[in-house]
């Protein structure tokens, strides 16, 4: 409970910090709209020439694009900036200040930096998702809804753990900023259902950089094409990765030698 309160305090602090830069909101709004426009133009030109893509109809893919923006935006609001900050703190030795605080260090480093305006992506994504859901009509039952929420939570946990593991590498190798660039490039591949990719790329997008679990699987749950095995697999992988990233973090933090290093 106190952890939740801590999360809220950090989020509020970050938000207050960003509210000082209100003009950034408009810049972010324009950028997010442009990003969304590109995605929608892509869908439009593809579906002008075909009825289905890898078995997905256009409204189903619209839902997938919505999820892509919601998940990507959420990562950009808190996880990615915090991870970037963590790398910087490890490099400069300023992680000392976080470690001496009387709270769980992993929790603190995960929510340290908040980029509030990235929420625009999340809001736009929810909008797209809502439009897609209306167009899909009555196809969404209670089972699909539960499956969707569960799959989304697992996807978020998987991607978070994955990013934490990547960032923890910075205790050994200082220059890992570039790894996030690779992650971003791979994440963009998730704008299309992973089913269309050839096996080698699909496997990399599922297990090496797990964007499939973050985007395609929740979308599958929503449009009712997810089987129970995949969902259970996602739950299992999420729990396993959470444990592994926690373990890896504790190993990494032991290597940290402070500001004088």
């Amino acid at each position, binding site marked *: 409970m106190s952890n939740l309160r801590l999360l809220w305090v950090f989020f509020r602090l970050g938000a207050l910090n960003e509210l000082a830069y209100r003009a*950034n909101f408009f*810049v972010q709004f*324009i950028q997010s709209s*442009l990003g969304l426009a590109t995605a929608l*133009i892509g869908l439009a*030109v593809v579906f002008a020439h075909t009825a289905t*893509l890898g078995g997905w109809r256009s409204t189903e893919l619209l839902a997938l694009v919505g999820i892509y923006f919601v998940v990507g935006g959420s990562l950009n609001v808190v996880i990615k900036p915090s991870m970037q900050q963590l790398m910087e703190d490890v490099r400069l030795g300023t992680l000392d200040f976080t470690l001496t605080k009387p709270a769980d260090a992993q929790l603190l480093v995960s929510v340290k930096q908040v980029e509030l305006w990235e929420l625009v992506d999340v809001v736009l994504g929810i909008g797209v998702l809502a439009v897609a859901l209306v167009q899909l009509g009555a196809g969404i039952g209670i089972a699909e809804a539960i499956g969707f929420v569960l799959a989304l939570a697992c996807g978020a946990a998987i991607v978070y753990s994955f990013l934490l593991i990547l960032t923890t590498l910075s205790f050994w190798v200082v220059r890992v900023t*570039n790894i996030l660039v690779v992650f971003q490039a791979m994440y963009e591949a998730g704008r299309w259902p992973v089913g269309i*990719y050839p096996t080698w790329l699909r496997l990399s997008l599922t297990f090496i950089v797990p964007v499939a679990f973050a985007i395609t699987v929740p979308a599958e749950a929503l449009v009712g094409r997810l089987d129970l095995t995949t969902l259970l697999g996602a739950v299992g992988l999420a729990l396993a990765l959470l444990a592994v990233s926690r373990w890896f973090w504790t190993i990494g933090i032991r290597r940290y030698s402070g500001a004088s290093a």
Partner: protein
Amino acid sequence: MGVSRLALYAVRLPFSALRFSPYLGIYRAQFAVTLASQLQYRVEALIWLFGAILQPLIYLIVWSTVSQTNGGSVGGYSTGAFAAYFVVLMLVNQWTDTWVMYEFESRIREGTFSPKLLRPIHPIHSDVADNVTHKFLTSFILIPVAVLLAVIFHATLRPPLWALAAFVPSLFLAFLLRFVVEWTVALACFWTTRVGAVNQMYAVAVMVLSGQMAPLSLFPPPVQTLATILPFRWMVAFPVDLATGALSPHDALVGCVTQAVWLALGVVLLNVVWRWAVRRYSAVGV
């Protein structure tokens, strides 16, 4: 009067060509410097290359899938033709790409541009040298990757010989045109340091109108017209269409002339904006 002036130009011209020779030396020196520094940042170069390969690859796969679900051909492109289009696009995009727009902001904001302005040579030259060096180095990976992808996805690429010959000058013109245009757009930094939105607007236009999402012929006619009137088509899509054999000799000639005209306009615009921008520039601090 008119004739004598013409004669004067005839005499002057070879000398003005000679005036370029110091540039050769400067470029040679700049190449040596950037080659050394970029060899140090090998991993970074590889990582940027990763994105340049993945994006066309994604669209290659999307369009191959579309083609396969519609009986092996869409909008005049077979599955193999799509593969060829996007493999060539990957090469042309990387060879014409610039990243000056993303560097200019910190140059202006942090003042690292000041020493470059003090040099007795236009700062665009060191950017060109940097860019060409990066492309030279990454090509050692990019070309084998392109060949590999062409084999994996069964690309059907049989352009006529004349088209291949015309591809070389059109690629060169496309590179110059894109460089001049993007360098001019980058100068927006002199007026505002919040150029993120400007850069992204430009990036979206390039993405859609230069044929990176799909061959331009698959877009509705108004979009095609827009791409043709604006410089975007001539920066990427045109050399790609040329190399994949989608153009007639007449189209190719008209295209190269259009590229040259846009390039001339671009150079004029660059000079005008540059003079205007430099007057606004003021450095602070160190």
